[in-house]
């Protein structure tokens, strides 16, 4: 307001119905709606990401829940299997003979070896375990489902294709640019590209002649003129490996071309050859050695010998190098022991600490220090707990590496803050009237706590504990550092102090494996882990709903 304006001068009344005013109001409401849209789209993006996560895991993992098996007819000849020692028979030969019986036309030794590759490498052990478990069947003809090896398992489930695209899209673009110049033609059923090659006399050594010269360099230099500015690898791939020899043969046959520029036709590599002649650059999937393997496998399928039962091996077998045989038994038991130790350690200690801090502790600096420490511990990265476990539990205390005991101890240190916070909240929720009533009847402070408050707060405490244990189940980094990443190929030695594997570290280890079959196995293991977490969280929520008392 300026000094000239006085209180008696009425201010200009705003015209709330004018065009500019209405426009302003519309703009403000538009801004409001925009903010709402941002909010909805943010939530939508988050939900979509969650959905993509689950869908991709389920899509990759559901194939692991059924295994492709061959129903192998095995004749348990009592002459070959000693009934008193069924485990000692030559199951390798037995498996081989039973499987080859399906293909009497295959007689070549090498082909037979390729044929046997259809079966899993553990086939003989599967048959052995069956016989040891069912010794009464010796002497009969039985049909045992035997898993096929990983490439055929993935093939049957349509995870890997029979033919793959041999060329990346940028290589195809390079081919197209060459083709447009019209320099590619077909001679003698092979695609060739014509190139102007300058036979540099300096490249031909004096004392060897053309035979000793390095024609690859000349070929590269000449071919490069088509692709000024591109990287070498791209165009080196286009020419066949024999291109340099073609040029060498030409120069040897006609030494007069040395020093001149000649027009030569150099052969293209096989993939580009296919692309030019057929328009497609598909080649057989290199995981399979020959088309015979497809023929044999298809004939098995046609005869109805292939079945896909549920993969119980996933839960019963221990780890293995072969994805079709790998299972989670070792990981589940290791995780179980580690969580057991974690619960046994952190539950009493957490409740005792929370009880003390909430009820008995005097309000002084030491109590503040303890509370600050607990809050800090909740925010420390999990790797640091792994370092602590490695340095102190394994280094100073000398506990065995990769034992579930050490894993459980590290996990309990991480779960402790969660349990303490949850217990304190549960204790706070019990109303003071209960405590005062108990005191009034003559109980001591400890008796009030143990007889009245803690039992009433127990549902909340248990909920917090289950949630803390669920978080501990998913922890990987500290377990990796203390070495709970052992390769456990048999389920025999499971104990608190034996080397073990945990479920999340098993997922990590399988995710690193190169075999294609492990991709679906890892996804399936992740689904198992998420299943456990969902069960635990639902239990916690159910407990809370059922036993929660509103005071």
């Amino acid at each position, binding site marked *: 307001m300026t000094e000239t304006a006085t209180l008696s001068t009425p201010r200009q009344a705003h015209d709330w119905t004018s065009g500019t005013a209405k426009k302003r109001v519309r703009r403000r409401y538009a801004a409001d709606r925009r903010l709402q849209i941002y*909010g909805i789209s943010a939530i939508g993006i988050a939900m979509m990401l969650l959905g993509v*996560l689950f869908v991709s895991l389920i899509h990759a993992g559901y194939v692991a829940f059924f295994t492709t098996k061959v129903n192998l007819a095995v004749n348990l000849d009592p002459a070959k299997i000693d009934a008193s020692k069924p485990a000692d028979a030559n199951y390798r030969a037995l498996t081989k003979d039973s499987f080859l019986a399906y293909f009497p036309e295959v007689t070549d030794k090498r082909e037979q070896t390729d044929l046997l590759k259809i079966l899993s490498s553990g086939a003989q052990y599967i048959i052995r375990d069956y016989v040891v478990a069912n010794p009464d069947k010796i002497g009969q003809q039985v049909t045992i489902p035997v898993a096929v090896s990983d490439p055929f398992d993935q093939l049957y489930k349509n995870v890997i294709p029979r033919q793959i695209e041999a060329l990346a899209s940028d290589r195809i673009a390079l081919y197209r640019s060459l083709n447009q110049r019209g320099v590619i033609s077909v001679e003698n059923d092979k695609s060739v590209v014509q190139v102007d090659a300058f036979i540099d006399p300096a490249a031909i050594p004096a004392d060897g002649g053309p035979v000793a010269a390095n024609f690859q360099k000349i070929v590269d230099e000449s071919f490069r003129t088509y692709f000024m500015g591109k990287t070498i690898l791209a165009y080196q791939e286009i020419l066949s490996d024999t291109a340099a020899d073609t040029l060498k043969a030409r120069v040897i046959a006609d030494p007069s071309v040395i020093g001149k520029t000649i027009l030569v036709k150099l052969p293209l590599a096989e993939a580009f050859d296919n692309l030019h002649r057929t328009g497609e650059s598909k080649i057989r999937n290199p995981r399979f050695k020959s088309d015979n393997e497809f023929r044999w496998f298809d004939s098995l399928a046609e005869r109805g010998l292939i079945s896909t039962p549920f993969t119980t091996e996933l839960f019963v077998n221990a780890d293995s190098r072969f994805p079709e045989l790998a299972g989670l038994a070792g990981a589940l038991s290791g995780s179980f022991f580690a969580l057991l130790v974690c619960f046994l350690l952190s539950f009493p200690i957490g409740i005792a600490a929370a009880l003390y801090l909430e009820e008995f502790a005097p309000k002084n600096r030491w109590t503040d220090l303890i509370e600050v420490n607990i809050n800090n511990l909740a925010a420390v990265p999990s790797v640091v707990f792994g370092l602590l476990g490695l340095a*102190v539990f394994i280094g100073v205390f000398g506990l065995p590496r990769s034992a579930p005991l050490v894993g459980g101890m590290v996990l309990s240190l991480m779960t402790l803050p969660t349990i303490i916070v949850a217990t304190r909240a549960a204790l706070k929720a019990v109303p003071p009237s209960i405590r005062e009533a108990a005191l009034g009847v003559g109980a001591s402070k400890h008796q009030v706590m143990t007889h009245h408050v803690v039992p009433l707060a127990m549902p909340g405490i248990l909920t917090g504990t289950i949630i803390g244990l669920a978080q501990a189940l998913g922890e990987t980094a500290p377990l990796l550092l203390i070495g709970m990443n052992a390769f456990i190929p048999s389920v025999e030695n499971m104990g608190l102090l034996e080397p073990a594997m945990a479920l999340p570290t098993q997922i990590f280890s399988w995710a690193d494996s190169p075999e294609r079959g492990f991709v679906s196995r890892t996804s399936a293991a992740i689904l198992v882990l998420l299943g456990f977490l969902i069960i635990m969280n639902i239990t916690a929520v159910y407990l809370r709903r059922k036993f929660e008392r509103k005071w």
Partner: protein
Amino acid sequence: MVSYLLLALLILTIGAYYVGLAQARGFTDKLASSDRADQQHSLSAYHGAFMAAWAGIPALFLILIWLLFQNSVIDYLLLSSLPAERTTGLDKGQINLLLSEIKSIAKGNIFGTPDDVTLAAAERYNSWQNIATMAMVALSLALAVIAAFIARSRLAPRFRARNSVERIMTYLMIGCSLIAILTTLGIVLSLLYETARFFAKVPITEFFFGLNWEPQIAMREDQGLSGGGAFGAIPVFTGTLLIALLAMMVATPIGLFAAIYLVEYASAGARSVIKPLLEILAGIPTVVYGFFAVLTVAPAMRQFAESVGLDMAPNSALVAGGVMGIMLIPFISSLSDDAIAAVPQSLRDGSYGLGATKGETITNVLLPAALPGIMGGILLAVSRAIGETMIVVMAAGIIAYLTFNPFDPVTTVTVQIVTLLIGDVEFDNPKTLAAFALGLVLFLVTLVLNVIALHIVRKYREQYD
């Protein structure tokens, strides 16, 4: 063996309880007068508990301490018992190797033909282990019995058993609370000790200011300088910051806008459905996120980059940072949610009373009022992003490049810690010690971030009414 001992101790403790209980119940027979001063002070159960506590707890502590230090002591004795010429000049790694060889021979796994000294040492090891175990069993059981007897002698009608038991319980509870401090102390001390040993081998300036991170150390002395490691950690730090920055760029807008919508615009029904769904994002283990990054996100982003013409490495910072951002969304969303919801209704009503729209209220009144809480949430999320391990181990690279291009592969502190410590761990190698040094830096940085976050929230939080 130990489990049997613990079982025996448990039975002793329960037995002591019943003995004390029976003795206390026997008091009433002795009491002739009905004078209050002669009545039994505490319930009989407390007398029993008193005896049980004295029987069980000291013996339990003895067993724990014994077990924790038995291996180190025996190792030390074993080493000093070997003739001097076997142990002079050996560095720590070779000593460990010698000890492991002796121990595996003692277990019965004999490889090759070990010499007599080692065989004798193995036999000594076995005998000492047996002696130690026997001694532990004998001492702990003896302690339990003696303590039980002493406790029994204290039992009397006017003995304040309940107070004693409660005092014991209070001390136990204090001990449990101190475990948090012990843990922090353990972390700090162990990290400091190993870091000090690291900085004895590698100068501090090289670690904090060097630009080359190549921690592969020569296996043997004669592999020359080319096998020596470079421990300049700057590329590792910049990689960590780059990925954390990318993660926050993903998580902050989504989390903040989601929180605004949930608090202000969403109906109660929508809130009750959407909030748990967001919490699910928080509950998914990070190894699942890492696998998701490798399985789906990396190929998708690679295809997208190729179609646009950019060159993207398969383990680029963008993939790891993006997925980490997805993990952090519920963090920021729930903390911002709490901060915005804590702003009192009177401020909102005042703003509406002045004629502001909901959006204007949010941007001009609520967000500034909730800003300390939101900032604290963002700092906590940054601290979480810096300390996150599994996503980056699976999705980010191992080679330390000094770059700010999100399409390049970078490595982070946590990846280096895990990579350096997986596999055989020699406690003297600068490689292993470098991991501890990185761990100390990580611990301090996250601690400082958390303290700052708390400080900001406390100091700038408006106190309403």
